[in-house]
């Protein structure tokens, strides 16, 4: 029997889970996250293998999901020295790179900014010829001054030749020591947002390298020689090589893994997942086993970006949410006692009325000392509880894509707060192992490939073009390491472009499949 290992490094805990070939959960546990990350991962793996009593050599795949890169951006720590090159002049000069980015980040990242002639039109024609001499001059200027370069060319999601050529020239002058991030690999149409995401990507290359190498060392020190993968925002995997080039694609893997883990545990591919924590409940949608992606620009560390992120509706309602009663008016949250629940909640001897106290008093869950809340007015408690349930039901309704009832899966420490029947839910699931849904999500991830292009679609060629687009996505997926027999189209979107005749349509296709075992 061979195994796979899933690790999720969070701010507080490092979770680990072992699955067998049939994807049965063999063992799972949590250890505290350590300052150097690596030690925490080592501890988790060490304890897992020992307690499950299996041979480390039998672990063939190891998957890591981590928020290390996200934290580096939010905290502005350990960021690389970067240069920013935008290709597209004369277009693009009316808004400079980093416009609208918070000043503290601009001061770190904005020391070398250039706009170079080149770039493409929406149909792939050149705006102007790429100014190669200019790129070469810039490269010489950057020698020894930066670790990382972000290159963004106008309409590179349609035609990326100028980005590729610029990278070649930069590589030629600067060698392999400087890493180069290309926007066409990072995001879709929307220059400012894609460029921002590419710049952030360039800034976290070192953090990603340290995390990846720490993971490999922690595995090696436990005698494990597994194929290593990293989880990305959309619930699929990346190789180490690709992660070191495009770590930005990992920044939202946390919520994604929890959604995917919940899906796996409850055996639902189309469902709404509610991850109930101490302070918030995060509500997301699974479509064919993948998180629905946000359609609007997502801010990260105060920066407007447009890369792939799961669409999460967060509400201020968790296990520690504070309840205030003033006459007839009940206010639930949005503030929470957070990790001080064990001191401040009434059932634990404190004096703050929390959602946990309400649920315990009504006999919905058993925690702390129920006698401490026995004196509370039952009618009032019912009113509060109904309001809590309505909040979750409304949050669920908001993320739905149709009016039909669909399965709802509750995971996370606070999931016991809620009843097994909810409005809008065809069935409510509260699976076992819901506490480590994150690590499970990382262990079960698939490999994916995606394409996004603008096509001219007519009634006659519609079928043919959509098939061609699908085939391109499938090829990408197999190239990434998927078993060619097990690749499926998981998402397809075509958006007609307003005001353009010729039926210009943006087509986006994503395919995913199980890892090829060789």
């Amino acid at each position, binding site marked *: 029997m061979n195994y796979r290992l899933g690790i999720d490094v969070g701010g507080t805990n490092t979770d680990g889970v072992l699955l067998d070939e049939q994807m049965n959960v063999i063992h799972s546990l949590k250890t505290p996250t350590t300052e150097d990350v690596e030690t925490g991962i080592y501890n988790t793996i060490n304890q897992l293998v020992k307690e499950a009593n299996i041979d480390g050599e039998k672990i063939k795949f190891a998957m890591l999901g981590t928020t290390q890169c996200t934290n580096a951006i939010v905290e502005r720590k350990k960021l690389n020295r970067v240069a920013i090159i935008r290709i*597209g*002049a*004369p*277009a*693009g*000069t*009316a*808004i*400079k790179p980093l*416009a*609208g980015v918070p000043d503290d980040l601009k001061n770190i990242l904005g020391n070398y900014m250039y706009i170079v002639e080149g*770039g493409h*039109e*929406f*149909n792939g*024609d050149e*705006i*102007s010829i790429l100014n190669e001499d200019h790129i070469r001059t810039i490269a010489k200027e950057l020698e020894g001054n930066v670790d990382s370069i972000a290159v963004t060319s*106008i*309409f590179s999601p349609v035609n990326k030749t100028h980005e590729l050529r610029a990278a070649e020239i930069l590589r030629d002058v600067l060698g392999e020591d400087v890493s180069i991030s290309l926007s066409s690999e990072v995001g879709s*149409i*929307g*220059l*400012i947002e894609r460029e921002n995401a590419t710049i952030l990507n360039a800034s976290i290359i070192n953090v990603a390298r340290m995390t990846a190498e720490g993971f490999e060392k922690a595995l090696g020190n436990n005698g494990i020689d597994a194929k290593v993968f990293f989880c990305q925002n959309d619930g699929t995997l990346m190789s180490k090589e690709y992660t070191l080039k495009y770590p930005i694609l990992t920044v939202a893997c946390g919520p994604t893994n929890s959604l995917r883990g919940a899906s796996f545990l409850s055996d639902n591919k189309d469902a709404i997942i509610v991850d109930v924590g101490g302070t918030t409940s995060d509500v997301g949608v699974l479509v064919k086993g993948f998180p629905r992606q946000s*359609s*609007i620009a997502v801010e990260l560390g105060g920066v407007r970006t447009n890369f792939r992120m799961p669409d999460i509706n967060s509400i201020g309602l968790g296990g520690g949410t504070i309840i205030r009663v003033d006459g007839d008016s009940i206010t639930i949250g949005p503030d929470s006692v957070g990790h001080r629940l064990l001191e401040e909640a009434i059932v634990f001897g404190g004096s703050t009325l929390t959602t946990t106290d309400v649920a315990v008093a009504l006999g919905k869950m058993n925690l702390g000392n129920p006698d401490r809340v026995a004196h509370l007015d039952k009618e009032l408690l019912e009113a509060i509880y109904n309001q809590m349930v309505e909040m979750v039901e409304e949050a669920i*309704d*908001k*993320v*739905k*894509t*149709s*009016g039909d009832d669909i399965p709802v899966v509750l995971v996370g420490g606070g999931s016991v707060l809620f009843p097994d029947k909810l409005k809008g839910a065809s069935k409510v699931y509260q699976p076992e192992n819901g506490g480590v849904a994150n690590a499970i999500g990382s262990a079960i991830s698939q490999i994916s490939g995606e394409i996004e292009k603008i096509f001219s679609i007519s009634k006659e060629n519609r079928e043919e073009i959509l098939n061609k687009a699908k085939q391109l996505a499938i090829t990408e997926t197999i190239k990434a390491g998927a078993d060619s027999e097990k690749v499926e189209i998981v998402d397809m979107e075509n958006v*007609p*472009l*307003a*005001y*353009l*005749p*010729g*039926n*210009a*349509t*943006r087509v986006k296709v994503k395919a995913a499949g199980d890892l090829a075992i060789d």
Partner: protein
Amino acid sequence: MRLIGKEEIENIAIGAALLGTGGGGDPFVGKMMALQAIEEHGPVQLLDVDEIADDDVIVPSAMMGAPTVMIEKIPSGEEALVAFKALEKVLNKKIKATMPIEAGGVNSLLPLALAASIGLPVVDADGMGRAFPELQMVTFYLNGVSTTPMVLADEKGNNMVLNAIDGKWAEKIARSATMVMGGSIMNAIYPMNGKQVKESAIYRSLTLEENIGRTIKEAKYNKQNPIEEVLKLLGGFTLFTGKVTDIERNTDGGFVRGTAKIEGLGNDKGENCYLEFQNENLIAKTDDQVLCITPDLICVLDTETALPVTTEGLRYGARVTVIGIPADEKWRTEKGIEVAGPRYFGYDHDFTPVENLMKARGK
């Protein structure tokens, strides 16, 4: 005359999104361009209509093409300037000031970016008081102002002077040229003298947009209901409150057409509202009543934040409040209704002012 700085731009952008009535293109690019131009060259002079002389040459500046292209191919900032220089040559006169052609979407902000970068004043007026999809749907056209001579300019330096026999031909030819020039261009259009502006423009629309933005911000700060405050400012009506339960979009002749179904909540529980749009929102109706119809303005606001929701941003589950605002009197004339009323857009309805429709509804 007063000065428009960065804070005013931020507020104008919110008002522009609201008066965009669901379309008009995301004001973001225009806002960022204006902010950069003001940072580099200083604030913009905003002129009241009373401050312009009858023989001053005033030329609106606008983008044409796909907003989706513009968010990727950001302008160089030179396009509008090239168009103005070329038009000055054709007119053989100096242009005294510019102005927006529409008070909605990205086109509200772009003239401010041009104005800041070349030190030209902007007249506090526009030609729509809202957003509309076609070149001839402006109050200048209603008053017989010629669309052309107009100049189209791209970021590469190409420009084209166009003289057309009427507004519809100008629209047709310019639309094709825009495609060839890369899908998003700037134009100098509807050249007017000060007298024509005074007769045909919609007054103080930039100030109105700024006030909308400030009202929403201040209402939130003072914990008032921002939607009610905006309605007071605009003399508008709450048409319907509910949640989006169905949305259908498709392209037809270069426009995004579609319908959204909104299920009533609160006062409107038990009823449905149907919103029909062609880039902009054009009709709002219940199962048996029309609530508001073009050229009156129909805006969809997020019930919680009061921020405008575009037709592209509409999605299932969104809690929205649909508001109706009376259009400027210029649109409620026979000619105005002919150019931008329900029948022009292919709807089998007569125009009825929103205030009458609301009286009939009796809510």
